């Protein structure tokens, strides 16, 4: 049986993908080179890594309001993460995910950046508030 994590019901469709995890925060404006599809902020724990088509697993949303537009533009250009899994988001990331049609969940029992590892294969079901880690047995 895969490991099943429970969270608050989220936004967007059910998706499956590979996790990219860091105990760090997130803003599309502050942290990303949206042309290259990588984390570019030198002090970010994922600096230099590609986020394209990965399920981002991070701690908190941070910073300004730009992510609300930017996620949709990233998606339109094929430069978006597949889904967002956070401990807790601010309204901007929820608004951006809803506008872009990107799946988002948060509010787990426990620190999701420790429960999930980079490379884990995840199935996210926002409507049910569930994340399954498919490559590990519970």
């Amino acid at each position, binding site marked *: 049986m895969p490991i099943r994590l429970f969270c608050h019901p989220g936004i967007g469709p059910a998706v499956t993908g590979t996790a990219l995890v860091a105990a760090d925060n997130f803003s599309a404006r502050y942290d990303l080179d949206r042309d290259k599809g990588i984390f570019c902020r030198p002090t970010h724990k994922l600096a230099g890594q590609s986020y394209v088509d990965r399920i981002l697993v991070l701690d908190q949303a941070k910073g300004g309001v*730009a992510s609300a537009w930017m996620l949709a533009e990233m998606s339109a250009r094929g430069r978006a993460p597949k889904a967002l899994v956070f401990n807790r988001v601010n*309204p901007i990331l929820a608004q951006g995910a809803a506008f872009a049609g990107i799946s988002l969940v948060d509010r787990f029992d426990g620190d999701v950046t420790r429960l999930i590892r980079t490379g884990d294969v995840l199935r996210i079901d926002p409507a049910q508030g569930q994340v399954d880690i498919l490559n590990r047995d519970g």
Partner: protein
Amino acid sequence: MRLNEEERAMLAGALGEPRRWAIAHQIAVGEFFDAEDFVPVGQAHIMADTESLGESGLCFLETLAAAPPGERRVRVPTMTDPRGLDFAVYRRLGQTPAMAAREARAIAALSALGVLMTDTCITYQTVMAPLRGEHVAYGDTGVVIYANSVLGARGNFEGGPSALAAALTGRTPRYGFHLDRHRRGTRRFRLETMPRDLAEWGALGGIIGEACGSYWEVPVIEGLSTAPGADALKHFGAALASFGSVALFHMPGITAGTAQEAAAAPAAARPVGRGDIDAFFARYAAPGEKLDVVVFAAPQLSLFEIERVADGLAGRHIHPGVRVIVATSPEVKHAADRMGLTRRLEAAGAIVAAGICFYQSYAREMAERNGWLRLLTNSAKLVNILGGYGYRPSLASLERCLDAAVAGRIV
């Protein structure tokens, strides 16, 4: 969410496609945050610079703008955050005609929706400050935190799509800082020293923001010896929101929150002293380094701040290898023009831009075209943002920024 008759009609499309999209978007967000219903808003404020919008966002706005007038017009007074460029100076900043063309498209679409092109992140200093208890849908973190904290208004960070949705429906989901239970203090800080200038107020916001690190934290700050002034709390709040994603703070006796809200925070206070502020500046220190650009922005400057920059440059000339950019709202720019401040600044070699705030203005492309790397500013918010745009940002007081601009090196 509970919907009333009008809200159900919007969702069914009876009031047109723009309002159907808007309320459907708001319901998705509201249900994510367990909102039970909507609350009417008095004002909306949209962040919609073209760097953030991208082509997809522009096309979205143009699609809404093509709807019949009765279906597309906003329902409450709606303002804009700074734009991507100032048509009067963009070529001098290395911005391109293609960027200007995108801005013109966005302006045409937003104007067709009935949005007032205020182009400012200091609405509370230049357009209309909200009242205590007034529910708002503001789309700039600095505006939200100032309105919530200093003025006692009620709002969440509303990104561009959500602020536009609120403008079209005249309401927003009732969650977060619209509710009493989220406005209570959660962390307590005690100042052991008073910040001495605007850059230090920004640094204090950065220190407390990093300590909080969440939108849902509400810091209570004690120990202020005097009321700091509107520009000080503008820089403090902008940095607090930038470093911590914080949207509300309380300073008992100064800001609009109640004694009960401040008393809710745990009694144990984290002290913040001179050493903390000095350490914050040290993170961005680069003494002696060649300087490329000095930026006064983020938030846009008040009339008083512009006067201080003009006074600081009196009788001096900016080093030919350094660009100095002063960004303010169109309304303050008009005042600065009328009072001779713009002329004095331009005579010293500065560029005064209206309706932009630098980091929303294709900052990466400007750096590449102009060869800018080392940037100096008195805005803690700006140094936090620009690291990801390829700059090496440094933080200093307004006076030291000007000394460095004249010397061509960080002094």
